[in-house]
């Protein structure tokens, strides 16, 4: 699997780049615009937990794994020790992620918050249309 990596300051204003890269890679996999919009929402939802709405000191490391028909996006936050990050998804977030992604996880290992999201090309919904 090919991987593209991105490292950005942990502010919401930089998430645009994450969305653009995700969309660009999804486009190469022939995702439809509906699926791309979903992917961007999923990425935003997870990244928002890491950056918070105000941003944090530190960086976000994002890796995009490009499969034959799906993308795997993982991210982690490198923050100040002691920075409290909520890694428990709200019920609403869970619902959003279940809708827009095939798999979405947010967790914390050794004090490092991480997420993983995967999305396959062409949701059934789109084909059925």
């Amino acid at each position, binding site marked *: 699997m090919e991987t593209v990596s991105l490292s950005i300051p942990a502010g919401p204003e930089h998430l645009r780049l994450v969305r653009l890269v995700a969309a660009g890679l999804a*486009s190469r996999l022939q*995702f*439809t615009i509906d699926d791309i919009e979903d992917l*961007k*929402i999923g990425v935003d939802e997870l990244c928002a937990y890491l950056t918070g709405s105000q941003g944090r000191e530190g960086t976000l490391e994002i890796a995009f794994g490009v499969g034959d028909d799906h993308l795997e996006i993982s991210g982690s936050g490198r923050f100040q020790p002691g920075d409290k990050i909520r890694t428990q998804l709200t019920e*609403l977030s869970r619902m959003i992620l279940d*809708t827009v992604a095939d798999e979405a996880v947010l967790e914390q290992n050794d004090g490092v918050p991480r997420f993983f999201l995967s999305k396959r090309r062409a*949701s059934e919904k789109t*084909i059925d249309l």
Partner: protein
Amino acid sequence: MERATLSKEEVRELFREYRAAEDPEAQAKFRGQLVNQHIGLVEFLARRFRNRGELLEDLIQVGTIGLLKAIERFDLDREVEFSTYATPTIVGELKRHFRDKGWAVRVPRRLQELHLKLTNVVGHLGQELGRSPTIAEIAQATGETEEAVLEGLEIAQAYNFTSIDAPIDGDSGGTTTFADQLGADDEHLENLEYRASLAPEMAKLPERERRILYLRFFKGLTQSEIADKLGISQMHVSRLLNRTLVQLRRALEEE
């Protein structure tokens, strides 16, 4: 509401009934009829601003606010016809919109135009293909590169429409009010109200935003399907959805 064209005298009569009406329901009814009667004027005026990088549907909403103001201020004792009186108010509202609330950040004109082009093409292609188009298909149809298309889609989020996307009061919505869009399959909306307990902020959202959220995440409709259902563009759905999610996240964070 039907839109039979009324004569000048009939319009004046409608105004008299509106002014005479005392209970809010009757007022809303007459106001709705007055709006309906002049929505064509709003559309006509809004169209004059359409090549400035904003969607016509949004401009019509802005113009409708101007129309409502004109309806409130119109003085029946004056000899002037209402449409003559309302025109500068509506145009003023549109101009003010561009002055105050245009692009949230300065977006190069080329990108604004691209955004508009994409809005149209995405809609047409979707109809033609019977499914949501890919970026490559959009690029081909617009003659743009895929990179430009992706950038253009992202730019959609640069709009700042907070005020005009907010619902105008009552049933004064003009062409199609949101209530018109309610289908039988949406009767489970109470379900959403119930679920709203998981995010009380959701209950505070304007009706349209809440509905889009509901249709997307509770009913599983795609953005394109929602766009069809509500009679707005997919890009507009995307913008509203993204903005709503940002608001919700912020609200939840502040808890």
